[in-house]
């Protein structure tokens, strides 16, 4: 815990009269799976937007490996190793599945646009490496058969996995997953759980995950934070959080088994 990969310090975000986040602080250690739960409107996605750079905070700072990145635009944060998926899926719908990945893999390019125009050996080699990496990710997430399909035409579960593959394509150290299990059936949720653990191993990831399905999260996470109306009301291991009276009152509705109504 001495070297936090990501730290948010006293982060606030105000939309007009609404305090979406109010002085939230916590840190995520390298290698852990960190869960973020809270009722609808608690500020979970807002927090992701602040961390990934889509929304500027009203105050507070985001710290990456000890350095403030609060003022960096999203693409710079991504290149530092911070990738995310979106709750409502934002794929490049008109591009093929493979091209969605190739876009994400651009950072591995050591060839310039001039190389690309003239189709030099350097460009061809970079392109070959990108394609190999893309096929590997497709294989890993079970999407190889769909490589040529337009992303917009995929089934929902495939789209979810493609979003994860695309985020992984940017070779992140920290992966932010915004409700990856939304809309999946129980069996698929189990599969996703195993997949996330597998991916963490293989890509040496730190994972931050927003999820409404609390039992799943309790099993998956090393630590978690609970937000309610923009305030962090609990932080700790699932066992600690599960017993926290404020969490039970705010979110679990007194049902200590953790099942949402």
């Amino acid at each position: 815990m001495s070297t936090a990969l990501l730290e948010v310090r006293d982060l606030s975000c105000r939309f007009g009269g609404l305090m979406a986040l109010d002085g939230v602080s916590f840190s995520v250690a390298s290698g852990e799976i960190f869960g973020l739960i809270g009722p609808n409107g608690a500020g979970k996605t807002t927090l992701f937007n602040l961390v990934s750079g889509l929304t500027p905070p009203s105050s507070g700072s985001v710290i990456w490996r000890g350095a403030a990145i609060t003022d960096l635009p999203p693409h710079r944060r991504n290149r530092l190793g911070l990738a995310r998926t979106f709750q409502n899926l934002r794929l490049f719908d008109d591009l093929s599945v493979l091209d969605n990945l190739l876009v994400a893999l651009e950072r591995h390019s050591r060839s310039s646009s001039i190389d690309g125009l003239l189709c030099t050996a350097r460009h061809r080699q970079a392109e070959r490496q990108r394609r190999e990496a893309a096929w590997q990710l497709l294989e890993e997430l079970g999407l190889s058969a769909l490589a040529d399909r337009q992303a917009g035409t995929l089934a929902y579960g495939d789209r979810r996995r493609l979003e994860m593959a695309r985020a992984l394509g940017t070779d992140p150290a920290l992966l932010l997953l915004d409700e990856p299990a939304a809309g999946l059936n129980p069996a698929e949720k189990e599969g996703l759980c195993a997949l996330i653990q597998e991916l963490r191993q293989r890509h040496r990831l730190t994972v931050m995950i927003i999820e409404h399905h609390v039992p799943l999260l309790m099993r998956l996470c090393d630590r978690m934070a609970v937000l309610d109306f923009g305030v962090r009301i609990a932080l700790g291991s699932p066992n600690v959080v599960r017993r926290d009276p404020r969490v039970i009152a705010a979110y679990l509705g007194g049902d200590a088994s953790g099942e949402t109504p």
Partner: protein
Amino acid sequence: MIDNGLLVQMLLGALLGLSVYLPLAAGQLSLATPAFYAVGGTLAALLSTRWSVLGATAAGGFPVLSLLLELVLGGALAGTLALLVGRLVLRLRGIYLAIATIALVEIVRVAILNLPFTGGAIGIFSIPQPFTDASGYLLTALILLVLTGWICQRLDTMPLGRAMAAIRDDELAAGCMGIDTTRVKLTAFVLSAVVAGTSGALAAHFLNTWNARQGSFDVSITTLAFVILGGSRAWLGPVVGGLLLTALPELLRPVGDVRLVLFGLVIVLGPVLAPRGLVSPELLERLGRWGSPTREQKP
């Protein structure tokens, strides 16, 4: 009915179509093409009539090498202007960007109309001729079009082109995938300006006279119609649109100003009858997979 002169105009139309297409391929609706076209044309007109080093003869002749130099300079000046203006206007999105680029067209037009050395409303005339007839222009325009088309074709298999397509689909997500969206959009905008500026430099010599009306808002709409009719999803679309729509009014010259109504009709009916334009990626795939990204083979 179609002579070499009209063919040159058609090719210039295709080039301007590509100039509108390039920013659009990155999701940016820019109507600034006529401004860059006017800048390139004015530069060529000024250089060839005022700067004797280029070698204009008293009989109105002009070395072809000097023309090539002007094409490069016209493109470079337009590109530089795009680089400066783009940093500001590309912060705007959608219709706001379109309006800002229309403003640029107006600013350039009024500037050319009022600058002390651009000839006012009459403009610059007796621009020297590097070629004795239209066939030389035809060849030059064809080379420019092939070159531009080749760049557009290459873009499809390059990180830059894929980044442009990603931004067109979802700019926000593209940023989160590590794409420097500002830079990619600016690159597309500058490329668009270079194509328009170079075309303008050639057009100035071809038309023999150049004035502020060459780069008016009308041209914004005309060139936009090229892309809407031809299709904005494959580079061949604006080429086909530019060729067809430039030829049409000339062939319909007897009907006079009604041709402007025709353009309006195309803009209204085009998206209704052929939402993806005459040349869509699907069509190209059926025609033999040329002009759209090639299909992927698993290694």
